């Protein structure tokens, strides 16, 4: 299972808390130097998995190895990992310098070397000159940086981050995302990042594991997750997705035609057995609004515009179609100079997309 360059190997890991299975038989590898995200809604087991990597929880079953060393029975203080906590866990009785230097006490560094490392770490997170500040004098963003520096100063093989940007406001968050990504490239340490924010995961990660109910649904690069989700849950969790259900009528050469009942026949990429119940997933930005029914070269569904929202760079339409419960989401880029709205609420439109834009999902 473990490839030559994997730094973390998780195999068959299950964690139970009494009757609750928080993590259910998970196996995957994380590559050296990777920015890897665990993405999922709350209660999906992502934090439990991270805490097992850190050594705060022991797996009920399965094995975790870090840099080819089995971690069973190795306590947190002897693992080559360091963690940035969701609450930052800045020691309130210590100043910034003492906080960052906390983990250097147990190393064989001299006082001078340790002091220098702390100064370097402060510089790394752009907090030079803040060393003597008390913990309570720091803003949210600064606390986050101190927590990062405190973990990185120990030069871990793996840095674990538990929703570290969750407590920041939107602008600061976006700023920190860019910094975090740049920092990871600079230090070259493997980052394992837990988040429930799919946008954040897409922005930061080399690869993402999408988790739900203690299981991993899909592990892929952000582009692949967005363009080729392997199931309905991933499709709907990452970004907005229109999903139509139906039965496969025929399938050949990587394309299929499905019978979506009231919505008519729809075509999509993917293979499926005839008669199977399947889902067709298509992104809002792949859809076009048309006033006339397009040719058979495109899928088309007739409907009525039920809502329009203006998002500056684009318009977002909701189209209600007969025989489909959820309104269809359509996103149109405002690339013409006038930005005129092409449709009004209540107007009859056709939602159309090329056959190749839709993905067939079996579950």
């Amino acid at each position, binding site marked *: 299972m473990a490839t030559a360059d994997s730094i973390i190997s998780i195999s068959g890991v299950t964690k139970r808390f009494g009757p609750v299975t928080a993590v259910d038989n998970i196996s995957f590898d994380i590559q050296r130097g990777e920015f890897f995200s665990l993405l999922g809604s709350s209660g999906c087991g992502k934090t439990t998995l991270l805490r097992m990597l*850190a*050594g*705060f929880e022991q797996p009920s079953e399965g094995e975790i190895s870090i840099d080819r060393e089995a971690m069973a029975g190795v*306590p*947190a*203080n*002897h693992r080559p*990992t*360091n*963690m940035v*906590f*969701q*609450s930052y*866990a800045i*020691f*309130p*009785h210590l100043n910034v310098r003492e906080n960052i230097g*906390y*983990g250097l*006490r*147990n*190393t064989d560094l001299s006082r001078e070397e340790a002091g220098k490392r702390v100064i370097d770490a402060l510089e790394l997170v752009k907090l030079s000159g803040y060393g003597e500040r*008390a*913990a*309570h004098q720091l803003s949210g963003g600064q606390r986050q940086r101190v927590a990062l520096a*405190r*973990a990185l100063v*120990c030069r871990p093989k793996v840095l674990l981050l538990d929703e570290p940007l969750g407590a920041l406001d939107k602008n600061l968050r976006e700023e920190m995302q860019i910094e975090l990504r740049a920092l990871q490239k600079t230090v070259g340490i493997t980052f394992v990042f837990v988040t429930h924010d799919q946008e954040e995961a897409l922005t930061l990660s080399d690869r993402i594991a999408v988790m739900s109910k203690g299981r991993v649904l899909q592990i892929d690069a952000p582009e692949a997750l967005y363009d080729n989700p392997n199931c309905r849950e991933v499709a709907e969790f990452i970004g907005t997705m229109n999903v139509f259900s139906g039965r496969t009528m025929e399938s050949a050469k990587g394309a299929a035609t499905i019978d979506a009942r009231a919505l008519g026949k729809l075509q999509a990429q993917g293979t499926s057995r005839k008669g199977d119940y399947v889902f067709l997933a298509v992104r809002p930005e792949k859809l076009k609004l048309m006033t006339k029914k397009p040719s058979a070269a495109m899928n088309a569904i007739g409907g009525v515009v039920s809502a329009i929202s203006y998002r500056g760079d684009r318009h977002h339409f909701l189209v209600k179609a007969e025989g489909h419960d959820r309104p269809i989401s359509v996103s149109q880029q405002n690339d013409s100079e006038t930005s005129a709205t092409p449709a009004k609420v209540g107007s009859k439109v056709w939602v159309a997309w090329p056959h190749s834009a839709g993905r067939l999902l079996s579950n």
Partner: protein
Amino acid sequence: MFTRPSALFIYAIAFMIFLYGPVMLMPVFSFNDSTFATFPLKGFTTRHYASMLANTSMILSLKNSLVVGVIVSVTATAIGLPAAIALTRYRLPGGGPVLSAMMLPLVIPSIVIAVALLVIILRFLHLDLSLWTVGAGHILLCIPFSMTVLMSRLEGFDKSLEEASRDLGENAWMTFVRVTLPLAAPGVISSLLLCFIISFDEFVVAFFLTGTENTLPVYLFSQLRFPNKLPGTLALGSAILLGSALLVVAAELLRKLGVQSAKPGDL
């Protein structure tokens, strides 16, 4: 507009007089040049203080009380701290019943505890009554108070602080020394003060369990039979009052300093 606040003001003053009036009479009579604690006052004197200092058995009982109080407060806090940590940090099987059991002395009348302890010490342990047995009884009384104070402090801080320490390479003991203890320090100080005061003040258990040596409350009680000893006890009471007032002021100043530097660990 004015009637309501001023009515409240009068009420507050009356309340303060009710609360502190009797206590404030003590220093007044301690300087009164008379053997009887009655009005009208006869004149100013410090002779009661001189006689207090000359009364070696009273000074000895004060010393006994101080020693017992210090030992009790340190021991009860030392026992209470690990228990409080265990009960706040870990989900223990039977944690609830254990906690209830530890809190029980809080609601059992101390006369019952005193009699029970007396029977145990004399009949089962066959020990002689002494200040040690008094101290042991006081520790039993103090543990629930110590636990309450410490647990409320320990529950107040983020559990991930201790995890962060472990994560940064410290073992359980050093995490306790470097993180838990400094953060729990205000609670530890409160527990020490509270236990000391409880022990210093305690009469019933001390009365039952003491041997030939007396603690101060027991001694004072025994002196009440002799009216001429009263002014001396009033003088001692006033001195203790002054001492505890200074202690409270000092503790409060320390706490303020601690808040300003936001370093509860410095307390």
